[in-house]
């Protein structure tokens, strides 16, 4: 055995070097590209608990490249609604994992100057550095679905964080925006309540896509804390998806309550990704670990 090792020592040495390299390869490759921001690990729950101020923001759609480093370009603006002048603002794009087994990642970038932002928010003339210009690589991210949060750090004590209601999935060499999240069928008791207010917008299926959207809320409850699920059925088959929340200022205006800002929901699923063609659906709201329904099944318009 020792003779074998001695004779092939060079192979063993190379193998050892190769192993070390392979384990750290992603980080090594990123090290050589200084234009790409690196991820840091964060704890979103802790960030949320330390957050003490509201933020305003606008985020453009990510430009996701198909290049070797899976680079993503993000742009937009964000600032804390405070009276601070000229803060050394730092902005963080935080990807919160939907799974407990994967960490949360953040990209930290100094805020940049956005002249168009200044034109709109003249009162922020002293806080003009609110731009987001980030370029990062997703090759070191573990597979999973992530919710995008935005944190603005004005200084050591003042920061705000907000959920953007955008979801992204990292799956091996691909990173893309998630338009729907499939969940297990709800087995807990779903209560009927007359406080369930709902209006539907589009509810159809054609050769390409299934689309359902509208708004829903429970009277006097904060929509920021609700999750809307859509249960699709066909005969004895059912499947459930979590809808993506949407801002509905029209609902706020109609009801006169800011509580209903995030009452909107939408869901788009490519038909070829459905387990079956649904005929009806039901809207379910989850709030404080309880599920509520109107106990009404709605028909899906079949445009095929």
């Amino acid at each position: 055995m020792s003779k074998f090792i001695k004779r092939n020592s060079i192979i063993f040495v190379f193998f050892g070097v190769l192993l070390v390299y392979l384990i750290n390869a992603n980080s090594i490759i990123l090290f050589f590209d200084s234009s790409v921001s690196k991820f840091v690990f964060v704890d979103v729950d802790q960030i949320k608990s330390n957050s003490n101020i509201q933020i305003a923001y606008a985020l453009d759609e990510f430009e996701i490249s198909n290049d070797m480093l899976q680079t993503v370009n993000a742009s937009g603006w964000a600032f804390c609604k405070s009276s601070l002048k000229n803060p050394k603002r730092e902005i963080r794009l935080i990807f919160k994992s939907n799974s407990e087994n994967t960490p949360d990642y953040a990209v930290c970038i100094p805020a940049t100057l956005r002249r168009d932002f200044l034109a709109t928010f003249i009162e922020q003339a002293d806080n003009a550095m609110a731009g987001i210009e980030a370029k990062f690589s997703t090759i070191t991210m573990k597979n999973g679905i992530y919710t995008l949060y935005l944190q603005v750090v004005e200084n050591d004590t003042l920061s705000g964080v907000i959920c953007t209601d955008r979801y992204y999935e990292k799956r091996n060499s691909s990173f893309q925006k998630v338009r729907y999240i499939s969940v297990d069928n709800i087995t807990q008791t779903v209560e009927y309540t007359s406080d369930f207010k709902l209006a539907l917008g589009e509810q159809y299926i054609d050769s390409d896509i299934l689309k359902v959207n509208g708004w829903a809320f429970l009277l006097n409850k904060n929509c920021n804390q609700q999750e809307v699920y859509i249960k699709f059925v066909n005969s004895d088959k059912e499947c459930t998806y979590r809808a993506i929340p949407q801002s509905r200022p029209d609902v706020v205006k109609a009801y006169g309550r800011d509580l209903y800002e995030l009452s909107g929901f939408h869901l788009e699923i490519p038909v070829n990704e459905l387990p079956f063609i649904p005929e009806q659906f039901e809207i379910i709201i989850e709030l404080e670990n309880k599920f509520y329904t109107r106990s009404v099944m709605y028909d899906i318009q079949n445009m095929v």
Partner: protein
Amino acid sequence: MKLNIKKVASPVLITIFPIVFLFANNSKEADIKDAIYLILGFSFATIMATVFLLFILHFSIKATLIAEIFSFFLLNYALLEKIIKKIFPQLYYWHVFPLLLFVLFVLFINIYRHLPESTTESMIIIINIACVSLLTFNIIISLPNIIKGGSDNRNTAEKITIEKPQSNLPDIYYFVLDEYSNFNFIKKYYNYDNSVFESFLREKHFTISSDSYNDSDQTLTVLTNILNLDYISTNATSQKEKYDMRQSAVLYQILKKAGYELIGVGKTDYTFALTSLTQGSKTTGIGNVRGETFSQIVLKNSFLYPLITIDHTKRAQEVLKAFDYFEDETNLKQHLVPTCTITYIESPHEPFLFDPDGRNVSPGDYYNWSDKKFYLNQYKYISEKMIRVIDNIISANPNCIIFVSSDHSARFRDEFEAQDKKSPFHALYYCGNLMPSISGKSGVNTWRIILNELLNLKLDENVEVPGNE
């Protein structure tokens, strides 16, 4: 042991085989010059590497076998990586390449230490025989296309005589928007009502056809035939022949005889064999639908594939520059010498670079036909741009002819019927006067109608459209 030609030449056979194979299977489309340059370059690199190995390994024949295996690995690396990534999808290029290099390193050490010389020689002979046979077969099947070469102007257009250049001829603006679907098509398959553009055109006294059909859904076949006013080429005609036919196009001959000057705008160098005023560099080489040249396709299979990228920014700029040409009024006023401005815009053909407002699309969606919105968004953007272009032209030069057309409609979804794909968009403005109907007329026949009206020719306006593929 000494250096001899056999030891050095054998690996070259492995190196040139993928190039010859690819060329043989695409000899109608590919230019032999591209293949030759690649063969020479790769052969030189292989010979240098083999000589180096021979020196290191004391001119042992095993160096030849190692060089052959290494050549094969490097040239087909992308395929090997695909296979490995099916099993280990989380790996990237920088994992797989060093890993395979290590495996090869171990293999080569074992070849050098343990494989008998006689076995090595036998293996090399077998590999050489296989390579030579396959190379010979591939060269034979591609020979007819190589020898055929260019065309001897085989167009069969009718003899057309124009006595002398005529006076007071209007300027002509001929637009070809690649893959721009007609109104019926976009309504049927995308459920999109393009009535804004349609109403605009009708208000400007355009005659529109939504039921025309061309002979093919291949751009260069369609354009070659339109420019020659007859169906002289098919999809089976080689690209070289078709290019020659476009260079000596009957339409160009007629227009020049009538006194017209020809101007190219956009990507006309290759598609129309006309030097473009807006392109920085001449379009060389033939590309596939995605604009990849033969060299790029070969290199994409090799270990160099990470370096092969298509410059999409350049493609976007080409489109924008073509539209910008029509923002300059000096280009639009009536010319002293009658001018035919031929504009070819490779949009809304993929890649899908623009959203409806002209903003960037995410690179991952450049070729996304599954989600209809990407083609449709680019289509909307081009429609908007054309409204502005047409408005500018007519404002500066109302007494002109504008023929806005496409070669075919959208093509790359299974649901599109073959005949619908061949239906182009046609809209004709003739000096503000309503033309006789061009409804149902192919590109060839529409041009015949225009020329008959313009130059008082007597061309048959109902040449039958072949239905071949």
